[in-house]
């Protein structure tokens, strides 16, 4: 599946995709910057609120960020839909994520899809490998 990059400014593109996560009452969709250098997906705590999840009840891990510091991330196993497929994924939440957008990292996603970045044509391709 080809997913066009987001055009953040005229002629400037970024691999930001849409992802759905199941809440008890409905599917919630949000954005995520595809970060092949991130071990885990990390979502903003507001997304946990939208999903009616008390995020600090998840499995706590510490992840190293760009400045060498450690941030706490709380992992939850959630039903997600991405690139036309539904599966369970390990999704982290952190109130120490220093950006306004969510990150889609390797855990759960890069074993289920071949993810290719095409920065010349400004699209990402996600090829399903199966559960």
């Amino acid at each position, binding site marked *: 599946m080809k997913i066009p990059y987001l055009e953040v400014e005229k002629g400037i593109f970024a691999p930001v995709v849409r992802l759905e996560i199941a809440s008890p009452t409905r599917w919630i969709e949000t954005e995520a910057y595809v970060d092949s250098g991130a071990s885990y997906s990390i979502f903003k705590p507001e997304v946990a609120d*939208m999903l009616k999840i008390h995020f600090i009840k998840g499995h706590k891990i510490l992840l190293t960020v*760009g400045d060498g510091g450690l941030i706490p991330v709380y992992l939850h196993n959630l039903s997600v839909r991405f690139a036309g497929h539904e599966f369970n994924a390990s999704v982290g939440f952190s109130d120490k994520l220093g950006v306004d957008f969510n990150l889609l990292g390797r855990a759960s996603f890069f074993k289920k899809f071949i993810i290719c970045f095409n920065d010349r044509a400004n699209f990402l391709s996600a090829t399903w490998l199966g559960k």
Partner: protein
Amino acid sequence: MAKSKYDFKFAREFAMKYTGKFAAVVNEKVIATGKNRLEVFRKAEKIAPPSAKIGVFYFPTKKDMLTAL
């Protein structure tokens, strides 16, 4: 709207129109915008049908995207 057509509309039209803001989308239409993700979601919850999918997206700026994560 065909999915691929909507994907393109989202990635181009919405991204350029709502740069630096949060937007709630239901049935491929923007129904609320603002500067706070949760506030935008709460607005959308009041408008959207009970079990409808709600999308709440942050549309990053060029500055946001200059990252070394």
